[in-house]
């Protein structure tokens, strides 16, 4: 498994080096620096030299490197490195050079806890935060606690501790969808799908058992049979009627948080779980059918002369007039030799960003059913290279509340607990742009 973990900053200075096995030599850090960081032609995230493999990812301005010998599980190594990053983020706010440098003792402590002999151990943030804290745990004081902590760190319900109490029992559910779109130059939709996530913040007393229902129709079943998530499978025809009324959504695939009982999900499609305390991601899903695209984009680009390009971009909001999208950003690529641009917009602000070669058009509030237009011209400077402009696609960012591209709705969330208290549930929907690209 992993022989060691290395953290570098952008310049290739070593920030952290933790060896887990004896075959992790200090020199390997130099090897990585020479071979990868100072070698711009390296483009693969995995590099094997001799019998040593370096797997690296980048986060903010640091390199996170897993060093291993032998035929290791590559997917596990990368996933672990990403886990380390997200752990760092939840501990220090962000995981960059600054944060690592000022918390390097903590980073060592964390690494010590989540890896043993190179094998990943418990990486649940909530559990770790119980005994690896910024204040430090004094061993006498924590004596009684620590046996509990260790029970929890290894137990079947490693994500939740006992004796949680809230005066007000609340659960917030956020359905967040990233809609991906790729439209060809001729206007046909090449790809439209939704990556959704259901985030939950649970402030519930005791050990609540939750059941969760969506208006989906999972086509994962063996015989292609539609099995609804809602409750036990009873009268099939009756259920179908109710489903049709609710307007059901087909999910291609779902992945569930480890607190969800996968076996009961496989058997009867119920999502039942004991939630961790606080916020967590309950599930992620994919949908490809009947995707409602929030924005329709029309792009007309003319290269008039060698020195001038004309743009006319119209964006229409396809959602109800009561809704509005916020922080809409449209990036319109310009040729690399653009000298200056002029633009006119019917809403928002447009600005040319020479560093990225794009015109950035920002609209703070985009009301439903409205249409805005950008017309622009780019003057091109003379260049020596006569390469044709590759025309990168136009891209969009936005976030839109109370709208789901897939049409997914939360039908119910039930909480069962010994205390039999009543709880308040809040549901929020949001659609964001994933990679929303329009070629022209």
């Amino acid at each position, binding site marked *: 498994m992993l022989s060691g973990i290395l953290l570098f900053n952008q310049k290739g200075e070593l920030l952290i080096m933790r060896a887990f096995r004896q075959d992790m030599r200090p020199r390997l850090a130099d090897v990585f620096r020479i071979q990868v960081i100072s070698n711009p032609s390296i483009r693969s995230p995995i590099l094997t030299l*001799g019998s040593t493999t370096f797997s690296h990812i980048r986060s903010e301005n640091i390199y996170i490197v897993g060093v291993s010998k032998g035929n290791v599980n590559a997917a596990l190594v990368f996933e672990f490195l990403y886990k380390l990053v997200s752990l760092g983020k939840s501990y220090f706010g962000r995981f960059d050079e600054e944060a690592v440098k000022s918390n390097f003792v903590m980073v060592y402590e964390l690494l010590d806890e989540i890896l043993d002999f190179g094998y990943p151990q418990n990486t649940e943030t909530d559990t770790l935060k119980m005994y690896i804290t910024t204040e430090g*745990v*004094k061993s006498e004081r924590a004596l009684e606690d620590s046996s509990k902590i260790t029970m929890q760190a290894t137990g079947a319900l490693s994500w939740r501790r006992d004796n949680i109490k809230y005066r007000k029992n609340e659960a917030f559910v956020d359905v967040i969808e990233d809609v991906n779109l790729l439209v060809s130059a001729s206007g046909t939709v090449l790809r439209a799908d939704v990556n959704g996530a259901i985030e939950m913040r649970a402030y519930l007393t005791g050990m609540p058992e939750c059941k969760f229902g969506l208006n989906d129709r999972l086509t994962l079943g063996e015989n292609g049979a539609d099995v609804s998530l809602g409750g036990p499978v009873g009268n099939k025809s009756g259920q179908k009627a109710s489903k049709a009324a609710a307007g059901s959504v087909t999910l291609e695939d779902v992945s569930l948080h480890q607190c969800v009982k996968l076996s009961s999900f496989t058997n009867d499609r119920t999502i039942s779980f004991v939630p961790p305390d606080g916020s967590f991601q309950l599930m992620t899903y994919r949908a490809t059918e009947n995707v409602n695209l929030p924005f329709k984009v029309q792009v007309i680009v003319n290269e008039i002369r060698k020195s001038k390009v004309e743009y006319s971009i119209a964006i229409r909001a396809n959602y109800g007039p009561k809704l509005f999208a916020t922080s809409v950003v449209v990036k319109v690529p310009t040729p690399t030799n653009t000298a200056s641009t002029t633009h006119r917009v019917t809403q928002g602000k447009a600005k040319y960003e020479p560093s990225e070669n794009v015109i950035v058009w920002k609209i703070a509030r985009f009301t439903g059913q409205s249409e805005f237009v950008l017309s622009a011209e780019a003057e091109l400077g003379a260049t020596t290279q006569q390469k044709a402009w590759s025309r990168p696609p136009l891209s969009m960012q936005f976030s839109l509340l109370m709208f789901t591209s897939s049409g997914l709705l939360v039908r119910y969330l039930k909480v069962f607990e010994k205390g039999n208290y009543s709880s308040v549930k809040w549901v929020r929907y949001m659609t964001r742009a994933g990679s929303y690209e329009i070629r022209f």
Partner: protein
Amino acid sequence: MAVNRLRNALSTPRKGETHELRSGLVSQYAYERKESIQKTIMAMTLGKDVSVLFPDVLKNIATPDLDQKKLVYLYLMNYAKSHPDLCILAVNTFVQDSEDPNPLIRALAIRTMGCIRVDKMVDYMEEPLRKTLKDESPYVRKTAALCVAKLFDLNAALCIENGFVETLQEMIADSNPMVVANSVTALSEISEAAPETKALVVTSQMLKKMLLALNECTEWGRITLLTTLADYRPTDTKEAENICERVSPQFQHVNPSVVLAAVKTVFLHMQHIDNPTLHATYLKKMAPPLVTLVSSQPEVQYVALRNIDLLLQKQSNILDKEMRVFFCKYNDPPYLKLTKLEIMVRIANSSNFDQLLAELKEYSMEVDMDFVRKAVRAIGQVAIKIEESAEKAVNVLLELINTKIGYVVQEVIVVIKDIFRKYPGYEGIIPTLCSCIDDLDEPNARGSLIWIVGEYAEKISNAGDILAGFVDGFNEEFTQTQLQILTAVVKLFLKKPDESQGLVQKVLQAATAESDNPDIRDRAYVYWRLLSSDPQIAKNIVLSARPQITSTIPVLPGPLLDSLLPNLSTLASVYHKPPHTFIGGGRSSALQAAAIEEAKQNARENPIAAAAVSAAIAGGPTPSTGGNAENLLDIDFDGAAPASMQKAPAVGSSGLEGLAGTPQRVASPTSAGGGGGMDDLMGMFGNTNGTIAGQMNGNAGNGLINGFAGLDMNGGQPPPPQDQLGGTGNKQTKEDLLGLF
């Protein structure tokens, strides 16, 4: 006293950082001591040698402050090797800590003891380890379980003597899922390092326990359990079905590496299930999670895509309907784009090729040169794979020629040559091709065009003029192009003898008299003699019908593929190489031995097909011949070895090789790279049947054949880095040469 004085004299001057740290470490204030320890660790990270502080740091080991303890332990682990004697001073604390009422401290002590790799420490480890293995806290037990693996690594004999391995085996029945997972981890580590211990032999009882723990343990534990399950050979169909049923819910796990491990387990155990409907069900269930992996982080995605590539080679139809997911995003990293291209071509079928060709055309307009070339090549691969798509593909290619971008046009020419080799009836586009003759500067593209001209000489009115132009500059051409010119002119002569008599003489003259490349001279002589003996025989040989090519999509040979499937989601599956080809000696030697054994067995069952694999292995077990890179890196890096460091960059300048999935020096027969390209071209000269070759043999004499065999057919390529290429490489070359005649 004398010792003290000596030490004073030897130690660093009183001033300076080290001195400051030392005085801090022995300070009477706790916070100052802690701060100094932190500073010491910081200096250690930066690569400064702070081992002189060892005794002073050690004084701080007995502390109630858990943080500080951890730091001291960290320091100990790092420098224990350089101060083995002083380590003994710490033993007492360790033993005490391992009996501390606080389980966190007990676990920390046993964890650290295992990491202090000093022989003397080992003797003191026995007792604490035995106790902690039976600890009441599962947290301590799971830490102790891994510690057994550490001890085994240090002193295997002691580990076995004390029965720790048996204890681990018993611990698989532990009530805590994480203890189960770590015990399995430790056992599989031990059995990998020393298979003779038979540490991990899964019984049906253990199987039950593992399946039970699977649903409850952490994501990482699940991966361990799934990997062990995948290696398990089920006793009967029933058991395999049971495993698949219990494992398949893991497809829904949020961690992509768990999903991959589950896919691997189910995929391998499916082979033992006879029921075809069950097969289909699992394949169907597998598809959506695999597709979901494509939306994970780029690096994870890369591993997933390489694995999907493997799965598709075994089961080509699992992702039939999912083509669109693999479309490249504009800002995907290049390694993803290239892998996605390969997968799209594999998924292509008669219902989705329209969409794919439009997409590939789009990619061909991008700026990344490698990507564009691969995209153009993919168009050809689709055309050759799916007959209906050929016409559309040719149209797309013609449009691309009109872009007049140098590297696009060149790649298009190479691709069109392949299409000609499969489908007749596109001769109409030859004039368009010939019009861009002046833009071609790469040997492969020039060679391809010349081949086309030679092949269709009778249909091209000005073929003679075109070739005459090439003949004029014959001496300046690349070897590869020269060979093509030779053949093309001979073809032209056989088709239109009256027009090109002079030309053929000129080129043969140039090749035999002026060229100093034996390869070219020899081929020219062969043609010359052939033409002067009997034109009819020459016609039979040179113009004989070529066997049609079936596919230009690279596929792994069957035995290699089968040996890779059990390695899904590991490095081997990313590189598409068996593990022993890229992993040197050392720890994994046992694994290597096992792999060799397996391959030998393959060879027995299927001698011809396995030849490739076993040839590759030949280079493996003897690391001394296994490439210099290996030696360079395995040199003891602790010792100052600047020489090896200077060489390293040259070795690893493999940015793009890495992309193809593997660094160049682990090339195995399948990716003989440039050599393969040459083989293709050589094959084009008309593979005649054996009888004619035999005749030729008689005529030209054996000497000629031997002469050819000795040639380095890889042209300008450096000699293969590892001996593994040797066996098959040579054989193939010989076969090709024979086919030539």
